[in-house]
């Protein structure tokens, strides 16, 4: 099957609508959230119409079917990531998954391998989304651990010149984003993971911007934990994934407490079910989990490798076209070997808000601002940027529309 974004687009009902009085929707904001194919929308509806009941509770047929449905989705996620089924924990989004890790680590008693004491170190980078920055910053404050980070250099890559000085014998946690949601930079993982393991730290990967866009296999990467959000991977809103190595999930204390995560409960004591149940109290976001399973099937059927190649080609085209625009500056690497399909830029003195508004008026949806990575935009010396991010339903015509509108904006605000 050849890869044709215009054919793929037909699977996504939202492209049938018009923007700002009749304009074609040019959706270049998939880095924030992706659009949903009809099969995913239908999967959620079908769950409600035919199988809705509280999974893992009740011995009736609907409850059995609901259980079967979410457990089947769990095994799809496991296969997609190359992990084991009991290593998949469903959350509401990657933000929750990262907070789960930070709080569970914070709950670890003395003697537990995750226990943090004053002076222990947590390593992140200046490139992190707030979701992979603030939870660690606050955990450090609560425990007395020290937050350290890799800096970002002028061309938007991690400064790894002093990797031994950043990840040290005191490091317990290394938590990094696979691909920057602002710069598009993909970090060189293998050396970092190796160094983390050499010093006995666990390696946590924020794969929000990579899992939806390229083949990611947790075993190949040799990481310890990974998070991503369903809504960025053509899945429903309200569902995210934490993957963790079985032996680590076994040792990690629980985060949220409630029904169905227990082994036994008295008024004063509780013991926990094995993972993943231990981390999933309450009636699950069942319809969303089912939808996510179908979303990953959809991506798999098209092929993650093909999707990735498509995005690389598109990004390459976008960067070359954008760079032809006077005063346009790409914030982040321009070498396709170092990056994925999120392209941030500035346009002379035109404020991104104004540019974004102008683009919107032409039917083009981009994101503007600091993209929830404020320390990074500050470091890059810009107050805000305009970001175009691509996915499987984007075509070169979308890039052409973007570049043309950027030029028009220049005239408008001149």
């Amino acid at each position: 099957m050849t890869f044709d974004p215009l054919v793929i687009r037909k699977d996504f009902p939202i492209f049938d609508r018009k923007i700002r009085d009749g304009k074609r929707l040019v959706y270049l904001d998939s880095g924030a959230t992706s659009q949903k194919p009809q099969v995913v929308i239908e999967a959620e509806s079908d769950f409600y119409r035919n199988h809705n009941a509280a999974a893992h509770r009740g011995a009736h047929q609907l409850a059995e079917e609901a259980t079967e449905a979410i457990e089947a989705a769990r095994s799809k996620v496991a296969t997609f990531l190359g992990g084991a089924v009991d290593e998949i924990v469903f959350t509401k989004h990657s933000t929750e998954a990262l907070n789960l890790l930070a709080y569970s680590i914070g709950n670890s008693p003395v003697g537990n391998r995750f226990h943090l004491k004053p002076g222990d170190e947590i390593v992140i980078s200046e490139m992190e989304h707030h979701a992979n920055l603030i939870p660690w910053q606050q955990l450090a404050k609560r425990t007395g651990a020290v937050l350290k980070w890799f800096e970002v250099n002028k061309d938007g890559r991690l400064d790894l010149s002093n990797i031994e000085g950043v990840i040290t014998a005191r490091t317990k946690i290394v938590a990094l984003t696979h691909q920057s949601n602002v710069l598009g930079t993909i970090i060189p993982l293998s050396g970092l993971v190796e160094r983390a393991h050499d010093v006995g730290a666990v390696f946590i990967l924020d794969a929000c911007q990579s899992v939806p866009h390229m083949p990611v296999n947790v075993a190949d990467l040799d990481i310890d934990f990974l998070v991503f959000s369903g809504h960025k991977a053509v899945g429903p809103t309200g569902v995210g994934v934490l993957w963790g190595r079985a032996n680590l999930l076994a040792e990690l204390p629980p985060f949220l407490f409630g029904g169905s995560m227990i082994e036994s409960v008295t008024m004063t004591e509780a013991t926990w079910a094995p993972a993943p149940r231990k981390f999933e109290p309450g009636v699950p976001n069942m319809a969303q989990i089912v939808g996510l399973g179908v979303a990953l099937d959809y991506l798999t059927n098209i092929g993650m490798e093909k999707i990735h190649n498509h995005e690389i080609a598109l990004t390459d085209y976008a960067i070359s076209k954008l760079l032809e625009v006077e005063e346009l500056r790409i914030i982040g690497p321009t070498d396709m070997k170092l990056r994925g399909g999120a392209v941030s830029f500035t346009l002379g003195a035109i404020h991104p808000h104004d540019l974004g508004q102008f683009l919107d008026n032409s039917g083009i949806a981009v994101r503007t601002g600091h993209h929830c990575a404020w320390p990074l935009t500050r470091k890059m010396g810009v107050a805000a940027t305009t970001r175009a991010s691509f996915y499987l339903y984007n075509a070169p015509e979308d890039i052409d529309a973007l570049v043309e509108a950027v030029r028009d904006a220049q005239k408008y605000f001149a």
Partner: protein
Amino acid sequence: MQLDNLYQEVILDHYKHPQNKKLSATFDAQVHHVNPSCGDEIDLNLTIADGVVTNISWDGVGCSISQASVSILTELLVGKTVTEAYFIFDHFVALMQSKGTVAGDENVLEDAIALAGVSKYPARIKCALLGWMAFKDASVQAQAKSKLE
């Protein structure tokens, strides 16, 4: 009635007349297992002599499936070598997890074959396995203990 596949005569018999449901005074290992989703509990005592299961006794509260399953287990495994018992155990667990796709070997499982219908009711598999998991746990403990002695 469809339900009769689940509640076979043998099961209801064992449920109403559970075998070996009185904890023995002596044992090599004693375990307590719980099904957290329903609160069912079982205590199981096990004695192993020279690699042979010589006594299994139990007590507990639970549904007909869990009660019958452990009752059947005690009749089936006493007198078997630990190796034979593990072979039967594996066969039984595989049957339970088969979602009704395998029939199970009556020569291996004897009366326990009556529990085959459970595999089509996912929520009940844990009930059927409660006593078996307790047995497995107890056997590991008993063997560890005999090694120490």
